[in-house]
């Protein structure tokens, strides 16, 4: 039996920062259809600061809620600050998650980091 907190259910039902950013500065997808956990993150960055972030999810309620919470937390942070975010913080902010769902919060953080890396690499290419 999976028990979600009210806050998780709220983020599941009303995800924040949902969707895609049309001309995003960076975009990254983690996970795969095969293993079921998959997520895409879109970033807008100005002066090393995340000014906008959106996500899409192919995953469970925890996946959706952790992605939603992650976007809320990092919006407005500098890239360096955002890189330091770890999955435990997201779980805490959501008031907890079933243990078997921790990997979903991991996925949210991994996808964010991949998007930041993507952005930094695109800068380097310029």
């Amino acid at each position, binding site marked *: 039996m*999976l028990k*979600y907190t009210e806050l998780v*259910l709220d983020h*599941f*039902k009303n*995800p924040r920062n*949902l*969707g895609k950013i049309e001309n995003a500065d960076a975009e990254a*997808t983690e996970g795969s*259809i*095969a*293993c*079921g*956990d*998959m*997520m*895409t993150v879109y970033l807008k960055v100005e002066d090393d600061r995340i000014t906008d972030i959106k996500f*899409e*999810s*192919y*995953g*469970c*309620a*925890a*996946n*959706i809620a952790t992605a939603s919470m992650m976007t809320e937390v990092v919006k407005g942070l500098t890239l360096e600050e955002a890189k330091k975010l770890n999955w435990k913080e997201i779980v805490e902010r959501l008031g907890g998650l079933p243990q*078997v769902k921790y990997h979903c919060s991991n996925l949210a953080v991994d996808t964010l980091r991949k998007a930041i890396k993507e952005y930094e690499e695109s800068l380097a290419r310029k």
Partner: protein
Amino acid sequence: MKVFLDNCRTTRVLPEVAAVVQQYMVDKFARPDGLYESAEEIYDDLVSAREFFAKSINADSPEEIVFTSGATEANNLSLLGIARANKKNGNHIVISALEHGSIMSIADALKKEGFEVTVIPVDKEGFVKLDELKKSIRPSTIMISVISVGHFVGSIMPLEEIGKIVKSQDHKIYFHTDAAEMYAKLPVDVKKINCDLMSVSGHKFHGPKGVGFLYIKKGTKIQPVMYGAESFDKRRPGGENIPAIMGMKKAAELSFLNMEKALKELRRLQEYFINRVEREIDHVILNGPRGETRTPYNVNFSFSFIEGEAISLGLSMEGVEVATGSACASEKLEPNYAILAIGGDHERAHGSIRFTFDRFTTQEQIDYTVEKLKSVVSWLRKISPIKSHT
């Protein structure tokens, strides 16, 4: 509106059944082995319940019915009991790929006791492959166990054909079927099937939890799984759970009443539901067979590009309660084995939702379910990064 569509997991006890259980808890509470009046009456009731269940499956004699704490125990008694009692004749057991988790676990336990287990594959619709079954049989095969109705994908197994194959061998093979999803839901006849053992569970047809029975054909060599005193039957010790047995009897009687009519209506609703979903929602796959060979109690769809736990949670928020085969919803994060067994990939398991009816499911409930399903699916598809659906 609340629509419970997880009736394959368990069902609501009917008030008429609860009343019987109540009566045997509070008034006729004695044990049948007492040496007094109130015990006598209860002994008679127990005898008549046994007769009733024997007749209900066309068994030869009431002694062929052993009451258990449910189908899990019946499955244990059957598989462990037959294997251990007949190991001198062989160490090979055959099961199907769509068995209930309990049979799978029992088979694993038997492997540790030195038995060999062959798992017979099923075809794309969820039917046991009979040619593979035939091929699997060896001189050392002592038992074949095949579920009556696939509990995930609804395939009614070709039990009669299996019975014939088993019977046509030149050595004795015990044929067991786990009928938890068949008994009191569809017509059952152990003579037609030619099975030696059949497991039944009370809470699958509006009876009480914690009760079931195992049919054991006369002459079957079986070893108990538990030992004790105070029982009707050496094969299952312990005081009989008489309130639950009498409740299960009542539930079965009610099921058999007008069963044909109820099944007809269920079939109509099932088709209606399948049609509406297939017409009104894109990218859906029906898991399991269509028509007469599918149990009318089960519909199972995979919705592409989205995940089942999220779908079922979304539906639950609207009062519709279902099951999913998504890995995300399983304890071990494994995709549903039944979907894989019928040739589905992880993605198809991922987006699978099982809707299971009882005989009281209404058109209104189906309509409500379809509406909610449409909105949940379209909402989750909007969120999904998989683009092929646009």
